[in-house]
């Protein structure tokens, strides 16, 4: 069993990173090498031209900043709104809680593409077009069902005795949530935050239609705007480079967030 561990980890790494690695290799190939048959694995004459082109053709640094803002704010809004709702569903024996939970789930069923036109009308009436905050709010709304369900199911797994003890110590409901439940639920919060953050980071349709000013655009829209001179050309090399650029900040964020999973574990061990 112990000896199998490195093999299993290697398999996981290969599975997860393999296709991404292929993108990295493709991004380093100059135009002439892209269509070679059979394909070269290691670029014969590696170059960073594709990366340069990506930043030259589009203001990608700007797009990265916009995406970061939208994703971070929508993640904060989502968690701030979902945590109390989830706690209420999980703990306060409210009348109709089960029904409310199912109703919340129902909102997760509608793909953004179908919601687009009505959302567009609503956003225009609210003056939220060409506003990154507007997009962050829509992302938060789209993420809310998942976040509520996710946190509620983890809160339920949390032993109620601890909360009862805190209540006896004079904490209010909100106090219990903030000081007892949330710290111990760090793994659930971290996992939910990562998933919600990445959803917002990658969302395309809403960002495309709501943000038409170039200086407000997000990364996925920016990638879709990479183009050759004519309509038909597909700049594979640049797209691969964009994949790599887009992913690195998320990997960094995940590396930071995933500590939350470990920390939550030790916190739970101490208090539990």
């Amino acid at each position, binding site marked *: 069993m112990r000896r199998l561990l490195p093999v299993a980890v290697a398999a996981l790494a290969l599975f997860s990173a393999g296709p991404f690695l292929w993108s990295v290799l493709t991004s380093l190939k100059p135009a002439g090498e892209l269509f070679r048959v059979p394909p070269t694995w290691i670029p014969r004459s590696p170059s960073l031209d594709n990366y340069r082109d990506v930043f030259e053709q589009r203001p990608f640094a700007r797009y990265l900043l916009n995406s970061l803002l939208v994703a971070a*704010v929508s993640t904060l809004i989502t968690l701030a709104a979902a945590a109390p709702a989830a706690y209420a569903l999980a703990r306060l024996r409210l009348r109709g809680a089960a029904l409310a939970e199912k109703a919340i789930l129902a909102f997760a069923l509608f793909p953004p593409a179908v919601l687009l036109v009505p959302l567009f009308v609503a956003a225009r009436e609210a003056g939220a077009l060409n*506003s990154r905050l507007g997009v962050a709010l829509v992302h938060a709304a789209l993420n809310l069902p998942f976040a509520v369900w996710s946190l509620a199911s983890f809160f339920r797994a949390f032993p109620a005795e601890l909360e009862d003890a805190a209540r006896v110590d004079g904490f209010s409901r909100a106090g219990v949530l903030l000081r007892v439940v949330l710290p111990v639920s760090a793994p659930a919060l971290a996992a939910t935050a990562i998933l919600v953050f990445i959803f917002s980071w990658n969302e395309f349709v809403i960002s495309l239609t709501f943000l038409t000013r170039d200086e407000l655009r997000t990364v996925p829209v920016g990638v879709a705007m990479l183009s050759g001179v004519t309509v*038909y050309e597909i700049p594979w090399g640049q797209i691969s480079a964009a994949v790599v650029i887009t992913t690195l900040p998320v990997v960094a964020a995940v590396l930071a967030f995933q500590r939350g999973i470990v920390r939550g574990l030790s916190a739970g061990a101490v208090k539990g």
Partner: protein
Amino acid sequence: MRAWIGTIAVSAVLALLPGCGKDSGGTVIRFVVQPDAGGGFREIVDRFHNAHPEIRVEMVEGPASTDSREEMYIGAFMAGDSPYDVVLMDVVWVPKFASQGWLAPLDDRFPEPARAAFLPGDVKAGIWEGKCYRVPLRSDAGMLYWRTDLAGKPPETFEELAAKARELKTADRGGFVFQGRQYEGLVCAFLEVLWGHGGDVLDGQGNVVLDRPEGVEALRWLAGLVGDGAPAGVTTYQEEEARAAFQEGRAAFMRNWPYAWTKMQEDGSPVKGKVGIVPMVHAPGKASAATLGGWGFGISKTAKHPDAAWTFVEFATAPEQQKLLNAKNGAIPTRRALFEDAEILAANPHYPDLLKVLLAARPRPVHARYSQISQALQRHLSAALVKKETPEEAIRQASSEIRGIVGK
């Protein structure tokens, strides 16, 4: 810790607040365009601002995918009160948008005599139920690329093309490549074969005539090539896959749009100087045909400044601007006179050949529900190409579905 998060949240929210209304009240017109990698559109807008300082043009660069840009227009139109005054349209959007009442007719501003300066196919594609809705900006049409070093002379008939493709096929070179994936490009490629056989999808009265013998024959020819004169993988090809294969010397013939010619002639291209273009082949006694593509300007019915919008459309489609767009973005002009322009000819020695193709170009079936017709065609053409349906079955089924769609 929590205070810290709070500070970040508040400052982030503040950073995101929309810039306060900067609408100065002047005349602003907007349109969506493909990413302007060549820079031609930006320069046209600059020139326009110099000539008409009282009007501001806001050019919104959309995604490279035509579908995504169509979505931007449709989303805005459906929501009502579209922010786009000028609509830069693909040929097939015209009947769809016009039948929804989204476009303003341009007959008064763009009368018959003015239209005569343009290529006939491009003008025809802008007409819906007798009214004109589009001024052509750039033309496009499908054609046959052939390797001058492999084939002595270009094939003329379908039989010759198939025979040559089989003959020139080797272990690492396919014969004929085209767009075979289930998408709009497949319909474009098939229509050229269908028209070249003397067939059509709809007749002049809008009746479905696809299931006449020519239709079956056309599809039998195209589907018969897959895995034989054409590589099996052609059922996944879009424009770029076909071009890459041909350009790397892995195909002897190719159906594609004119953009590929420019790429073939770039330095480092393995087929530089070895490529010829001709109109798509035809059946004996029938004429060649090309599927028309291309873009043009329409004006939104709800445009707040229709006169300013027209001023821009007229300016942007004038000869000097078409020349600029040709030089910068490789856009094919829609004005006939430009095909005799010395500068354009010097940069594009193949234009006399291309003009022959463009004059043979025909619009795809002009119908308000073209996208449904195309979907039915795509479904059954693809099924015939992957041998899930026989050509006879595919044509019969597609025809009956299209009859349901057009209601005739």
